[in-house]
């Protein structure tokens, strides 16, 4: 260790210069990242601003971020012309039911695959994983005909059929069980005479709360942003999800930008707020997809 008293003037000066340089680099990085972050958000900020603009202000250059003369006219017009609230309700029901189904199927299957070691189960697990590679778009046409033969077209139930299980969810829960639920705990409960079902409900399920929360948020957003599947399954105006409703609404030639922005903002604002609230869960869920390696 160098004693401070022994440092020469020159050494102190060079240390100070180094620190000043480091601070300058940090400030430069902060400025760049701040500008970049704002640029990423700008399209959404403009969209929300446009929703409150009058037709005249919409055409103004440069575009204003805070409308001079905010109006709710666009929202009123959209709500009058479209069943926007109905579409949102359809989407919410679809997303909530899908989350519940995925949590239920993933927690049970993940637990069984993690703690019950039989060769037959290993084969089934391999099948689950192998099909995870196949994108939904590949097999949605046959699935459509299955839904059709069940008579579930144009209903939330038909939408749900496509989003009942998630291979990644099963994998995620299996990893979590392996890492956070010791065999000893389960054995102790068994020695106390607890049934397998009781153990799952009262020990395993509560211990997985964090992981299941993350999975639930992931599943919710997956259904909330689904497009191709709702587009083919829900084809009547009252059964559209919000994504499909908006996409088809914008192809109508009478629609102006203000109304479109208002309709979009109505969808965007709640989903951004939901994300902010559940951010930790969500980021955790997404981040764990990358940790497979």
């Amino acid at each position, binding site marked *: 260790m160098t004693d401070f008293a022994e440092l020469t003037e020159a050494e102190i000066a060079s240390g100070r210069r180094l620190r000043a340089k480091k601070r300058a680099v940090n400030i430069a990085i902060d400025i760049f990242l701040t500008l970049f972050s704002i640029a*990423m958000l700008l399209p959404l900020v403009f969209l929300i601003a446009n929703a409150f603009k009058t037709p005249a202000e919409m055409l103004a250059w440069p575009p204003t971020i805070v409308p001079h003369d905010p109006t709710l006219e666009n929202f009123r017009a959209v709500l009058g012309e479209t069943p926007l609230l109905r579409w949102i309700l359809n989407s919410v029901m679809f997303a909530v039911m899908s989350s519940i189904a995925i949590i239920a199927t993933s927690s*049970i299957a993940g637990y*069984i695959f993690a703690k019950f070691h039989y060769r037959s189960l290993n084969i089934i697990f391999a099948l689950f994983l192998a099909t995870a590679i196949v994108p939904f778009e*590949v097999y949605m*046409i046959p699935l459509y005909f299955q839904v059709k033969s069940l008579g579930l077209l144009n209903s939330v139930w038909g939408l749900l059929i496509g989003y009942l299980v998630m291979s990644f969810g099963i994998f995620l829960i299996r990893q979590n069980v392996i890492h956070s639920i010791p065999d000893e705990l389960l054995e102790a409960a068994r020695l106390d005479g607890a049934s397998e079902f009781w153990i799952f409900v009262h020990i395993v399920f509560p211990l997985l709360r964090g992981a299941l929360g993350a999975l639930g948020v992931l599943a919710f957003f997956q259904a909330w942003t689904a497009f191709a599947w709702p587009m083919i399954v829900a084809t009547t105006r009252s059964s559209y999800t919000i994504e499909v409703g908006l996409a088809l609404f914008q192809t109508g030639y009478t629609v102006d930008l203000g109304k479109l922005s208002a309709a979009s903002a109505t969808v965007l604002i709640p989903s951004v707020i939901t994300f902010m609230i559940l951010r930790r869960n969500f980021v955790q869920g997404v981040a764990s997809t990358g940790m497979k390696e």
Partner: protein
Amino acid sequence: MLKRKRWIFAILALLPTLAIFAYVRMYPIVDILRLSVHRWNILSKNKPFIGLENFRELMGDHLFLSALMNTTIIAFGVLAITIPLAMVIAALIFHRTRTRMSGFYETSVFIPHIVSLVPAAMAWKWIFDARLGPLNAFLSVFGIEPQAWLFDPVLSVICVIVLCSWQALGYAVLIYLVGFKNLPVSLYEAAKLDGASGPTSFWHLSIPMLKPITLYVSVVTLVSGFNVYAQPFVLASDSQGAPGRQVRVLVLDMLENSFRNYRVGYAASEAVVLLVIVLVLTLIQFTLLREKGKA
């Protein structure tokens, strides 16, 4: 006796999930393979087996070929923008972790990834709009002529790439951040002692060590690029009510063949082509990772 009971529980508990899985996954996947070698027009009752006839016809179908071409350009275009940008942004955010701003950076880069697709695409549609859009107005400041971004077939592909990259970036940054957090700190400290600057150690340490992550993000980005549908649908459907055709992509072509032309077998063979592309990409990822493991 107890063992037998455990086995019965495992099977019983798994049964509902397994049944659902078989019905909504395995069956339709097998079905798509079966349909692809049959001629099935929804309107007729017969489904004759025709072998690879559908695939042979696809090779001469110019609509399919242009869809395949566009989709490939979009997938690789998004990849070329997303990977380098995500790496740099993640490195910079990682450099500033535990400062007050890092949460803001992470959140704002990630938000485009989670917002609903259609409203987000709507925002970009306004930006690209030929008459009212801020992009043309902005470019005119530099004396650049206004472009018909969403009407020119080449330019609209670029617009789709920009929109998709904007959305894909947040996911890639997040995965890279996880990667940076798992890198050994000691190596960077050693490099620093040897006088390596930040950019130098990024180039010589981070990029090579993050290779498995880069591979993973690349495959995920490419696969979702090949499945692209909503973005071109919203961007390239013109205001006159015609569904988007300027940017023809595989999923659109498949759905049109199935639901507009009622040629389900033919559409199924397109789905199989999509499946083969995805399988090849995944196989490449596994092979490269295994090679790395051996080295």
